[in-house]
């Protein structure tokens, strides 16, 4: 007998669930008892038996996760050097993310020749608050793209 206590507990829970959460009947069914069948009435015309067994059985069930919607997105060309490039910095209003990006901007100017920095949280402040929805996010991306940065570095939470 496998996992007898678990079988008993889950069996009781399910029996209670199917019975409309009324108190479980006593005495409790043993883990090895015969399969229980509860009947579901469909508009008083269709009856379906839902098999519930404490013993091993063959199951055929549907995968409830289904498939994901995939809208492929093309990645921007990769850079091999940052020299002379325009680098955008995107802050999402999470505390200290702007301080982090300000420091990255200082280091880039100090260490990378000819680099141009655009702090979108200063130049395009409406890009700062979190996007409310997909349309809002696209609008913000378009505002950023208008400045033609070669790369954008965003700071995430938290």
């Amino acid at each position, binding site marked *: 007998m*496998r*996992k007898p206590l678990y*079988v008993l507990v*889950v069996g009781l*829970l399910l029996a209670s*669930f199917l019975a409309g*959460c009324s108190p479980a009947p006593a005495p409790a069914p043993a883990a090895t008892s015969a399969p229980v069948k509860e009947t*579901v*009435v*469909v*508009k008083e015309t*269709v009856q*379906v038996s*839902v*098999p*519930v*067994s*404490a013993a*091993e*059985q*063959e*199951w*055929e*069930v*549907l*995968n*409830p*996760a*289904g*498939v*994901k*919607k*995939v809208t*492929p997105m093309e*990645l921007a060309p*990769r*850079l*091999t050097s*940052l020299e002379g490039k325009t680098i955008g910095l995107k802050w999402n*209003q*999470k*505390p*200290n993310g702007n*301080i*982090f990006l300000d*420091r*990255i901007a200082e*280091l880039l100017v100090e*260490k*990378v020749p000819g680099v141009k920095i655009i702090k979108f949280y200063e130049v395009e402040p409406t890009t700062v608050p*979190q996007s*409310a*929805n997909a*349309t*809002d996010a696209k609008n913000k991306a378009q505002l950023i793209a208008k400045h033609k940065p070669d790369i954008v*570095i*965003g700071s*995430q*939470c*938290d």
Partner: protein
Amino acid sequence: MTVSTSEFIGLARTSTESFGAPDQAFVVVPHPLGMIPREEVIAKADAAFPEIIKAATEWKPSRTTLPDQDKKPYPLETIKFTGTYADLNQMFYDKGWSLGLPVVPPTREAVDAMLKGTSHKPDEIVWDGVPPRNGIVTVEMVATLGVMAGAKPEHMPLLLGIVDAMKMPSENPEGFDWRAQTTTTHPTAPLVIISGPIVKELGVAYGIGAMGPENPVNLALGYFVNLLGDVPGGSRPPDADKSTQGWVGNTIATVAGENVDGNPWKESFPVERGFKPEDNVVIFAGGGMPLNMNDHASVDPKDLAEVMANTMNAVGPSRCFQNGGIWILSPEHAATLSREGWTKKDIKEFLWNNAKAPFGVQPPMVEGKCSITSCCPPESFGPVTPDTLIPVCKSADQIELIVVGGPGKQSQWWPFGEFSPFPPNLAKIDPWK
């Protein structure tokens, strides 16, 4: 390129995939960045800088296509499994197909029986991507999740109406859609109110204990809502659902019926919005954990409304100039509020004018910058001092009143903060019969 703290990199990768990018350049810094002194932030930036340069110039995507690309959403895959009922439940949980509670096995036979509860075809797509995973929802999937949750075929129009309301973009262009709610650290969870004759027809609890009922219909609907959000939607901890602590509403959503009999203003919430009294309607919102108001003493409506206002101005959950919320009023509190002829509009105006907290006790700005949790009144509000009283939401229209529950002097304030679709989404149920 995205810089993420170590605790949020899983969500960042999930989001990248759900937006359609096979991969993205990430740089991971040790968590946290927020709520630490400036010098620690600078030290983390200095340490990350070499990795940022490397990611900007050397990174290559690890893959060029995504899982599920070109797969069809119908029919759902059939799984063969040998084991006990307990083993089956364990398998479902391990695969991310359940939330840890037992499910009714979605056999083909049981799902086909559920499908008889609607005239809609099983291959109809009713939501083309539940965030954050973007799982595609068909009528067949609704029936499958409904079986798992313990719903019955006659509930199918309700289940489909709920999906219809959940997927709606907010009417408010600044209102957040479903994605933000499913991934935030905030303990947000759905609030579903069913209104119309169907409440009594199907036995949806609307009286005593309706918001947390031992009622199989409400429980099945609430379990369905979270199965939908967590299985096709993929909003499971620890990576996509980042709830710091969460609450039980993240597992079984709160579902209740509107108590129209106990509503002294007579018009149901949907009727206020232009629906007909005979319409069956799902009201869908979402928000943080509710705050209870316990007032057994007020006789004058103004006294009760003052207690309500002082419940709303709790700066932890409500903060300033946020999206308001919904009062779930008990019939007795509603009766007190209406005693001297106050309309819902009168009450909303009173609450808007009185639910205020001093600027000085609100979450602060960070080095003078408005951060995501700061209280940042709009410029039109004018200058503020620590004593300036700041309203909890932007207007009286952002405060809603719905009557639910049985006898007693308890009501609930559901503050919506910044992560909820507001105003609530309303969807008709009858077209799904």
